[in-house]
């Protein structure tokens, strides 16, 4: 048997506009706070995982700011699953016996980055010149479909359950209404203002049916987690053991072959596969989840992931949402943090930040937004490409 791995300390910085901080400031803020939360120092760390997609920084550059002890850094990138992939690298190091404690950090400065569309298409070429494997003579965004994220996920949502006509603008807007309501209780969310359905639907349209407030919020932020092996944890203080959070399952997966996904991103199959494996590893089922943080990068994404994560009956995501199950007072609260649309989405931080959210409830430390009695929760992230992580976390019984 390899080691079980636990979260000993974890931290998420406030998300939003952090103009006075550079990328390393945010990474250091999260890392130092996670270490403090864990009751340990960099001297105890034996491995680092690090993710920062747009900042050109590495774990080594963070070490120069918070402590250079010579430990390796796995600098990873996996789109929106970058932070959770950094955590997996640390987990593997611990499970393999190479380390008994390590730290994972995800950080991004994204405030004001604008729409996450394809590249600037620029002006046309002097001469049409076929490029790449498709022999494209120009940037195809806007000419052969869209490469903008809001539009891609709009199509994914509009295709839900064989294009169920109820998967429409108003339904997706009501999902965002829930997010913007939940975030009013989250002091770390980038946007904490409640929004009415009308406000959401009347916001500028980005890619129908996604208005601006139905899209993930570009912002600055970082999150960090200190992981520990179970045998090491048992040597630590009772208080550390009590607050530690068990990682019952940690799964990273990529797209398997599906014909449709060759042309158009398939976020469902990979999520389904990861979730099935995670439930199996953890020995729990969807009905056991006291809360779920799932990757609602756009409103439409949340709907399909209810189904992909088996939170509802197959094909039943619309009824499930309409039943109120995913509101914070429902059967399976989803994105009580406010989700990516209002908590915000500093890409490489997100994969650890949603684990922080779940862990904070399991520790009964979530303040006014606490889901009472939370014992088991799930954190899901998917980045196009695709890479998907599913983590199932459990309250300490030590």
């Amino acid at each position, binding site marked *: 048997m390899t080691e079980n791995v636990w979260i000993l300390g974890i931290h998420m910085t406030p998300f939003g506009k952090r103009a006075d901080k550079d990328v390393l400031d945010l990474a250091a803020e999260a890392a130092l706070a996670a270490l403090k939360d864990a009751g340990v120092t960099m001297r105890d760390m034996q491995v680092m995982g690090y993710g920062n997609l747009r900042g050109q920084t590495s774990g080594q550059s963070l070490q120069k700011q918070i402590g250079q002890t010579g430990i390796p850094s796995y600098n990873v990138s996996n789109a929106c699953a970058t932070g959770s992939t950094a955590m997996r690298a640390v987990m593997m190091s611990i499970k393999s016996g190479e380390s008994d404690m390590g730290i994972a950090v995800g950080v991004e400065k994204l405030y004001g980055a604008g*729409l996450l*569309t*394809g*590249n*600037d*298409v*620029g*002006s*046309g*070429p*002097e*001469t*049409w010149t*076929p490029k*790449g*494997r*498709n*022999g*494209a*003579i*120009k*940037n*195809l*965004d*806007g*000419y*052969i*479909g*869209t490469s*903008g994220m*809001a*539009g*891609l996920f*709009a*199509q*994914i949502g*509009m*295709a839900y359950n064989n*294009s169920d*006509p109820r998967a429409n*603008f108003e339904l997706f807007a009501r999902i965002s209404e829930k997010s913007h309501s939940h975030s009013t209780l989250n002091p770390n969310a980038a946007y904490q203002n409640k929004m009415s359905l009308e406000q959401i639907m009347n916001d*500028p*349209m*980005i*890619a*129908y*049916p*996604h208005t601006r407030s139905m899209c993930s919020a570009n912002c600055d932020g970082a999150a960090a987690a200190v992981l520990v092996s179970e045998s090491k944890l048992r040597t630590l203080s009772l208080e550390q053991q009590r607050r530690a959070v068990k990682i019952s399952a940690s799964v990273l997966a990529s797209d398997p*072959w599906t*014909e*449709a996904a*060759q*042309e*158009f991103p398939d976020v469902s199959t990979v999520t389904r596969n990861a979730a099935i494996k995670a439930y199996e590893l953890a020995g729990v089922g969807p009905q056991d989840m006291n809360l779920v943080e799932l990757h609602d990068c756009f409103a439409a994404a949340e709907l399909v992931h209810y189904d992909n994560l088996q939170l509802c009956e197959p094909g039943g995501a619309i009824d499930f949402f309409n039943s109120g199950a995913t509101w914070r007072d429902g059967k399976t609260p989803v994105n009580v943090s406010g989700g990516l649309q209002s908590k915000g989405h500093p890409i490489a931080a997100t994969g650890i930040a949603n684990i922080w959210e779940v862990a904070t409830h399991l520790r009964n430390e979530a303040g006014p937004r606490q889901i009472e009695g939370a014992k088991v929760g799930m954190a899901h992230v998917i980045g196009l490409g695709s890479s998907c992580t599913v983590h199932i976390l459990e309250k300490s019984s030590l």
Partner: protein
Amino acid sequence: MPIPIVNYLALEPQPHLVAQQCTACKAKVFGRHNACPNCFALDFTEVDVPTTGVLKTFTIVHHDAKGVPVPYCAAVIDCGGMTVMGNIIGVDPDPEIITRGMEVQLKTYSLGNDAEGVEAIGFGFEPV
């Protein structure tokens, strides 16, 4: 002679899309591949893709990268079992007009001429 926007758009005899089909497992993909992503076989043959299909899903893009004319309708079309990405053209990009399940037909249009006078040809799908 005009040049297609991508190499999987054939202009002759009538405009149509051309897929690469794995000779082993019959999986179809667009564009050059090193091996079959499904069965890892190395050989492909070219097969024509039907020029009519059913609109599976769509979006109307209102904000895009600089230089992309908006709004436009981006869509996913099922052409005889092959999934194809393309814009819906020839109608207003309006969700009241464009509906999931509607039948569409491949159409080409001019993307203009380059400095040497060569015309580029794009494609999209029009409601039948």
